[in-house]
């Protein structure tokens, strides 16, 4: 079907021998970088989705005798449950609050020694446009010390973090692509110098620049694809090992190393991308050099 006839002995000189290995390293780094970016993004999405449609009401502890904690909780619950768009409002039990604080305060009778706020887990009706600012103000006026937390600060920071990881990942891939292109330029120039006489002859018998460039670009693509496949295989193996190491601590906040079918498709495109970059780079390098010939 597709058979490339090489008039230039590009496979016989040493100019391109190192290209597959360098491309393999480049694609390996790109694979890890892209996989890390996707894993972090998936975790951010997961946390974001977990927080979507929920708000937390915090009722600060008060030492004022007139203020009964139970009354304030009841007033807050009543107000919340009467608000249109609120699906449920459930107080978080003290032992659950203690458990949440354990990583910072340690085990023990925390509520007895510290003024721990009361918390209400509020679930909103899906698709409801509830004015959370107004609800917060209403709560604060009705229940002294009550504050509504819509997690916006947390989700914004998560989103910023996800975006930063994405940008860093793209930057690494761009650097890798640039270094790969540089390698191909170097190898192609070496090939042009080694085969100068053959190229001159091909010119004299009527070869177009594109015909000669076609041979260089096919060679560069072949070398890069081979290197790319090796790099991808090594990257996949590394991800497999990392997944094995991360498995016992799954369920924590760590990003999961599971690669979805879509993610595999993205990673599988990396060797193709390497081949495409090599092809274009080789063509541009050769055509520029040949323009110097009569």
């Amino acid at each position, binding site marked *: 079907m597709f058979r490339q006839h090489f008039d230039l*002995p590009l496979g016989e000189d040493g100019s391109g021998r190192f290209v597959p290995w360098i491309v393999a390293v480049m694609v390996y780094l790109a694979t890890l970088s892209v996989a890390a970016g996707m894993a972090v993004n998936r975790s951010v999405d997961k946390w974001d989705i977990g927080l979507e449609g929920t708000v937390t009401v915090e009722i600060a502890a008060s030492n004022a005798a007139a203020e009964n904690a139970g009354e304030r909780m009841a007033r807050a619950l009543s107000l919340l449950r009467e608000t249109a768009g609120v699906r449920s409002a459930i107080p978080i039990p003290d032992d659950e609050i203690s458990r949440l604080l354990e990583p910072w305060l340690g085990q023990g009778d925390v509520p007895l020694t510290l003024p721990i706020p009361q918390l209400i887990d509020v679930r909103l009706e899906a698709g409801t446009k509830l004015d959370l600012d107004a609800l917060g103000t209403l709560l604060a006026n009705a229940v002294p010390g009550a504050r509504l937390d819509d997690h916006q600060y947390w989700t914004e920071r998560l989103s910023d973090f996800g975006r930063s990881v994405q940008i860093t990942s793209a930057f690494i891939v761009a650097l890798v692509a640039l270094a790969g292109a540089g390698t191909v330029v170097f190898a192609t120039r070496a090939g042009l110098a080694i085969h100068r*006489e053959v190229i001159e002859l*091909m*010119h*004299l*018998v*009527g070869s*177009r620049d594109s*015909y000669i460039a076609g041979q260089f670009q096919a060679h560069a693509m072949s070398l890069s694809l081979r290197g790319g496949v090796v790099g991808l295989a090594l990257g996949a193996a590394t991800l497999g090992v990392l997944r094995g190491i991360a498995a016992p601590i799954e369920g924590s906040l760590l990003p999961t190393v599971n690669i979805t079918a879509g993610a595999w498709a993205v990673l599988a495109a990396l060797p193709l991308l390497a081949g495409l970059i090599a092809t274009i780079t080789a063509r541009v390098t050769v055509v520029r050099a040949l323009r110097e010939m*009569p």
Partner: protein
Amino acid sequence: MGYSADDEVLRGINFHLRTGSFHFLTGPSGAGKTSLLRLMYLAHRASGGVVRIFNRDIAKTRRSVLPGLRRRIGVVFQDFRLLDHLSARDNVALTLRIGRVREDTIRDHVTELLDWVGLGDHLDAKPPTLSDGEKQRVAIARAVIGRPNLLVADEPTGSVDEYQGVRIMRLFEELNRIGTTVVIATHDRRLISQFNYPVMELDHGTFDITGNN
């Protein structure tokens, strides 16, 4: 024509080759025969003067047009310039492949021509394994396989015996008969006298054409 501002190789040369003509080009070594041939097969553009080939002023012709013109010119180089990594068959096929001719057509034509020049049993031989005479015949086959409009040969019989030399000249005559303009550069006065064609004589600054042009 010159290779640098103060290194003029050819000067005061003015001639016109009729389409379908046959000429010898002769002169002592260093007289500029090879430089003149290089202008004719478009390896160089002249630094001055006008070179018109196939009704085109080469100095004013765009670079992208030159490959098409070069494919209409067959060249036999004095040093053969065969590609050592390719077989005799692929060396001869080179010009056709560059011209995007179908592979089955290439195979048939190349085999037939190599057979004709006596290399039918050397199709897959690489140039380093061939004698000078055999290399020269491969180079000639490569030059004529595309039935060029202009054939330029630099000492094409220099490395073959008299019998092969005459056969090669007959091949050039065959091509000439079907309309190819032929220019043969040679030192060999005996060869020139054997064939009754006009002779362009280049001798350090002088240029003459003798015989029927």
